[in-house]
């Protein structure tokens, strides 16, 4: 028997060398992380609050603190007193204190951390990835770039030339030429003019794919913080989606009460003002800006207007005119009716206005936003309607 044993001793060793190449622990750990990612994508909205709406997010990451997932088991409920056995110098009645700050079970019936549910780690997610997942999740279409009516000049690299501007010298190419020459002529001159190669630019005419997105926000006193958050979230995702479609996107931020102002993004979300709501001033402002800076021939125009929907009744006609005028130029006008914590008995004046315009066949739509979920619905609705319009 012991001979056989000895033979196995070396035998098994050879067979089982695979463990150097493959780690089951690592495989299952990766699967765990994959599951966390799945879970995180379901909570995307919470991640967005810190991101700027308009900034470009290529290569940017967000760090999300996540807990290890716990594989749940039946366990007994927390008991006020646990008995245990110890060893060493201790007399009955001795009292010791352990640091339970972190080790203890969740304080109030939360029961979500103990043993294995324990430490947090930071998961780094690329914003672009988040957006990709999100598009998959919502099953959103990737829209084709809409082209403006104006062609624009575009220069692209094409071929090489022996003469050109110093800035366009192609060093790699030049070096190659020098090597070839030296190989043929056997002369040890490092570079001669004949070696130089310059990149050539060729002018093309191509349709422009530029867009401008107007984010309009009612900043009157009735708009509470939660309303703004929802609006901001919608603006963010709408911009992200449109960014996939256009090479160039410009953003315009307009806030209004009974007056309207244009702001930079940083200021925009911090503006608070008192006073009532006269929506038409925002639409008029947007129309002015379009006239001055964004020719509809050149730009695809999107406008999103967020408000709690109450508008001065006297302003109805002016708002209607303003919207109709905008709708002639714009690809789309969206109304985000923010309704956090409000009970709604009847449609607001603004949403009725949008419904009317939609019935008249204009590219407008109203979306009620009560909670973050509704933002996804609205985003989904917006991009699908764009895809339908494309088809």
């Amino acid at each position, binding site marked *: 028997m012991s001979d056989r044993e000895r033979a196995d001793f070396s035998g098994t060793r050879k067979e089982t060398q695979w463990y150097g190449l493959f780690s089951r622990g690592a495989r299952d*750990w990766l699967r765990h992380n994959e599951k966390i990612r799945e879970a995180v994508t379901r909570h995307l909205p919470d991640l967005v609050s810190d991101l700027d709406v308009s900034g470009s997010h290529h290569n940017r990451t967000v760090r999300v603190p996540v807990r290890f997932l716990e594989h749940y*088991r039946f366990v007994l409920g927390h008991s006020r007193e646990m008995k245990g056995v*110890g*060893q060493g110098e201790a007399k009955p009645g001795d009292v010791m204190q352990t640091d339970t700050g972190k080790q203890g079970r969740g304080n109030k019936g939360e029961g979500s951390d103990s043993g*294995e549910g324990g430490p947090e780690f930071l998961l780094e997610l690329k914003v672009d990835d988040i957006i990709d997942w999100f598009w998959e999740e919502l099953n959103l279409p990737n829209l084709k770039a809409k082209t403006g009516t104006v062609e624009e000049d575009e220069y692209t690299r094409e071929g090489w030339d022996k003469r050109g501007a110093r800035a366009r010298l192609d060093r790699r190419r030049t070096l190659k030429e020098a090597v070839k020459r030296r190989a043929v002529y056997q002369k040890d001159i490092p570079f001669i003019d004949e070696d130089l190669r310059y990149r050539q630019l060729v002018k093309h005419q191509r349709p422009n794919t530029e867009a401008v997105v107007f984010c309009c926000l009612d900043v009157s006193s009735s708009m509470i913080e939660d309303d703004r958050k929802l609006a901001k979230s919608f603006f963010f995702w709408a911009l992200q989606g449109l960014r996939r479609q256009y090479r160039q996107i410009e953003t315009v931020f307009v806030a209004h009460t009974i007056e309207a102002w244009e702001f930079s993004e940083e200021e925009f979300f911090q503006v608070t003002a008192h006073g009532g709501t006269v929506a038409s001033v925002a639409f008029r402002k947007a129309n002015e800006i379009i006239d001055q800076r964004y020719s509809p021939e050149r730009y695809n125009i999107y406008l999103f207007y967020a408000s709690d929907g109450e508008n001065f009744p006297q302003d109805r006609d002016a708002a209607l005119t303003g919207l109709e005028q905008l709708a002639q130029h714009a690809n789309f006008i969206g109304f985000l009716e923010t309704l956090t914590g409000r009970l709604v008995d009847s449609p607001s004046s603004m949403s009725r206005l949008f419904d009317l315009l939609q019935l008249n066949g204009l590219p407008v739509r109203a979306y009620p936003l009560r909670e973050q979920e509704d933002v996804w619905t609205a985003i989904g609705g917006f991009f699908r309607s764009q895809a339908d319009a494309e088809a």
Partner: protein
Amino acid sequence: MTDLLREYTKQLEALARKQGLNYFPVDFELVPTSFMMEVAVYGLPVRMPHWSFGVRYIYQLIQHRMGHSHLFEVVFPGNPGRAFMADTNSLAENTLVTAHVLGHADFSRNNALFRKSQEQVGYHIVEQAAAHARRISEAIDVHGQSRVEKVLDAALALEQYIDPHLGLQRPLYPLYEEQKSHKVSDPFLQRFRALPGSEMAHDASAERRRAPIPPHREYDLLWFIAHYAPLMDDWERDIFLAVREESFYFYPVFACQLMNEGWACLWHTTLLREADFLPQGLFLDAMKTHSDVVRPYAGEKQVALDINPYHLGFAIWSEIVKERGIDEARTIMEQDDDFSFIRNHLTEELAEQLKLFEYKKTADGEIRVMDHDLDSLRESLLVKKFNFGAPHICVKSMQSDGTLLLRHEHETDHRGLDLVRADKVLNYVHGVWRRPVILHTVDEKGHSITRAVP
């Protein structure tokens, strides 16, 4: 160096057999630390994939990086047994480990619980677990990761719910209730009934009643679900049975941990002391490692709030051998598990000598040393070992619409369940049972409550 170790192994084995150790052959293998960690995490060299092992693996890795854990060996009973030793161990350490492994091999061949479990799993759990892993990988290919994972989420969450007394192989419940023989005390009636032809009136078929499912409280939840779940696919039942088989293997490992480690320590000490072929320096290094393994406190501390099972097991065995001799010790090893071992052999003198004390810990972390009471101390030592370390939960009934009724025996456990987790587990179970699942337990105040999915 390996040649030297091989030589020592040969001699240690000869010594062990001379000392009366009786074990199946053991395949020793030196492996990298990373592999040791995996084996420790999975409990078996090759085991089914599940994300929860990944979490444990990372914990183990962190522990290891922080220097809190040193895995010397992992051993699997069977015929042959398999022992893995870290290739980073020194020769002295591996010599000690080899002797230690022989103690484990002796224990697992002769201890009653181990024997029963080994007979049931056919002495080849390592190969069987690898086969389970392969079948589950195939299932993933066929049915997709998430479906298989759902089944494993449920089965592994119920891992501890087997009934070791009823065994691995057991028949399905009888379909019909056992016929109660009518008590006929009247001798005349007895004779009358025995007359030919009179049986017509008492035709059995009229009285045969369908037996309820289950006919008694069922503690083997894995078995019950695998066989009685109304809407499970065969491959899903297969996964439940695979998990269950591995649990039968793990049960004695769990229930005899203290005895088993103590026994192995007893033998590595005895064998090394007798091993006159070992160089003096190596022997001293090995004994240094031995004292690190069996020391009661970590580092410089004078008080420990946990008991090192190597230390306690070793101390109890040493006492038994000293007082009653090795033959009686062997008999105890064959018959006991940790419960009877602690209750019968942790004596008043030993508890005093080892300075064991019982304490109460309140929710805010205050620890108060209690008055000495040996019986109470023993039970506190054992409290985590009852019922495979899990709350007592049984199947009470299965209703005609397929609803599964589970009951938590809070009287036995003295309190209710952590409801957050209980709900999650019920969700897992519902994922495979696919009919309503109901659980009865009590809340913090002891009022009975019912949790139901959906």
